[in-house]
């Protein structure tokens, strides 16, 4: 929040603004990821928590195996069509506020395996993603960068009005529909509310 606005608000009620800052500061500095690896990127994710890169510096080494206690889901690798319902279900099981980092080309778009019949072409078809990291696999530094980007994003979130986090918006979607594994493909093939088809004018 910029300084001038802060003073302006301070005249009306400085209390609200400090709560917001404190709250965002708390959320930002205690993002516990879920212990959840999918494919190749998971190894780099593990490497990020290891001694050389040490994700723990940001207070994020508490990898919780249970989705209930986790704040961040790192989609580290290819999401297959067989796995996609489980990923969405896990996301539904997480408690708000929750964030998603799509790590690597596969999680973003299917990556090199995009043409495969069992590969989901990007997890953002079903759940909202906060930060995308390109790379195959991204280096640990890239994951750290994504992590800091997420922290910045949390820090800048206003608690009221437009752009407030989903968990403070009473009308926002809390549970995302889990796709069903059909006879030929997942049904539906995407969650239209989260992933509208891109309209490109040429």
């Amino acid at each position, binding site marked *: 929040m910029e300084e001038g606005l802060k003073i302006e608000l301070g005249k009306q009620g400085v209390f609200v603004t400090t709560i917001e800052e404190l709250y965002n500061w708390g959320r930002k500095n205690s993002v516990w990821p879920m*212990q*959840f*690896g*999918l*494919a*190749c990127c*998971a*190894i*780099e994710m*593990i*490497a990020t928590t*290891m*001694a*050389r890169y040490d994700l723990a510096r940001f207070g994020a080494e508490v990898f919780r*195996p249970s*989705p209930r206690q986790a704040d961040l889901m790192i989609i580290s*690798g*290819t999401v*297959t069509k*067989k*796995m996609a319902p*489980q990923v969405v279900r*896990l996301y539904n099981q997480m408690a708000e506020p929750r964030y998603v980092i799509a790590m690597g080309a596969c999680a973003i778009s299917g990556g*090199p*395996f995009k*043409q*495969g*019949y*069992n*590969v989901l072409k990007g997890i953002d078809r079903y759940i909202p993603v906060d930060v995308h990291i390109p790379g*195959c*696999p991204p*280096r640990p530094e890239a994951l750290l960068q994504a992590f800091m980007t997420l922290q910045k994003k949390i820090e800048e979130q206003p608690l009221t009005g437009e752009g407030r986090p989903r968990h403070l918006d009473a009308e926002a979607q809390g549970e995302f529909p889990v796709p069903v594994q059909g006879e030929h493909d997942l049904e539906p093939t995407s969650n239209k509310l989260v992933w509208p088809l891109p309209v490109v004018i040429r």
Partner: protein
Amino acid sequence: MSGSLRDTNLEGWNRPPVIVPDGEGELLEVAMGPHHPSTHGVFRMDLALDGERVVRLKPVFGYLHRNHEQIGETVSYLAMMPYTDRLDYICSLTNNWAYALAVEKLVGQAVPERAEYIRVILAELTRIVNHASAIGFLIQEMGASGTPLMYAFREREKILDLFESLTGSRMMCNYMRFGGCRVDPSAAWLDATRKVVAGLPQFAHEFENLLMSNEIVMARCQGVGKLRPELAINAGVTGPMLRASGVNYDIRKVDHYGVYDRFKFRVPLGDHGDIYDRYMVRVLEIHESIGILEQALKEIPGGPVMDPKAKIRGFRPKPGEAYGRIEGPKGELGFYLISDGGNSPYRFRVRPPSLINLTVLEDMCLGHNVADVVLIFGSVDIVLGEVDR
């Protein structure tokens, strides 16, 4: 050699045993995975538990089925090389080698001597990375807060630095080519490698001590998850897991591929075939690998790293087929290729050691505790990318 098939007369001798639950209560059915902290990725086991004892175990695969084989049949031979990196993503260089070997068999391509040495060096470094992290993960799964894993990854980072400076990538090296290797390592790289290799024995001893002197590790690993050699052979188990059951079968020794017959190394064998033996065999293999590395780094000749006659553009093998295999860190990694004369294989098949080693998972786990299942599963040492492909 206990490869005899003495009880083959018995009907169903190679099937999992039937465990009768105690008492009359209902069995607790648990789906372990696909999201579970210790299934090494997205693997699932459907367990039926009688108290804590496992009565039935059915593995469920396919959560990471990324269609490698189909992609292999649509892209060109060379374009498949980076995909092999992503099969077993802990040891990409041995996958490269296995694929390059299969294609070289298919077209009858020779490899220059220097390239063979480089391949051996890289493959043995990869083996050390794989075995070290496997042991790290074992003790992590026993609940030691990741400390041994940190030490394993510390060495891994050193080796990955070497890979990165040579190939440009930490994990997905995409380094080998049909008829050689992509770039020639500089003298400085070889010196750096020598320096890293000189530090490895100390690390290997550290891990050996960890396994040899910790009572809890011994109490949890010894006598658990036994595998009979006859069943191991019949089920196609390969790699350290087979040798822990006492079967002397190392493809480096059997097939003499590459230049392995020029190096002196021994094949460690276990007598019990339990979890402890599997890990000790891996530790001892690290020692042998260090020996191979020292010899290879001493003897590496000069010369080209690529066969000048090797065809790169418009690579179209004549019709035919070939099966090439190497001793990967996890077991026999094979590639089976059928060419119809086109620029992509008619059939591209990966023989994944991880998947086939899992055939006996049920046999090993039945009658043990849930806690043992995690360790037995870890001792098979799989990577899901290779299991499901």
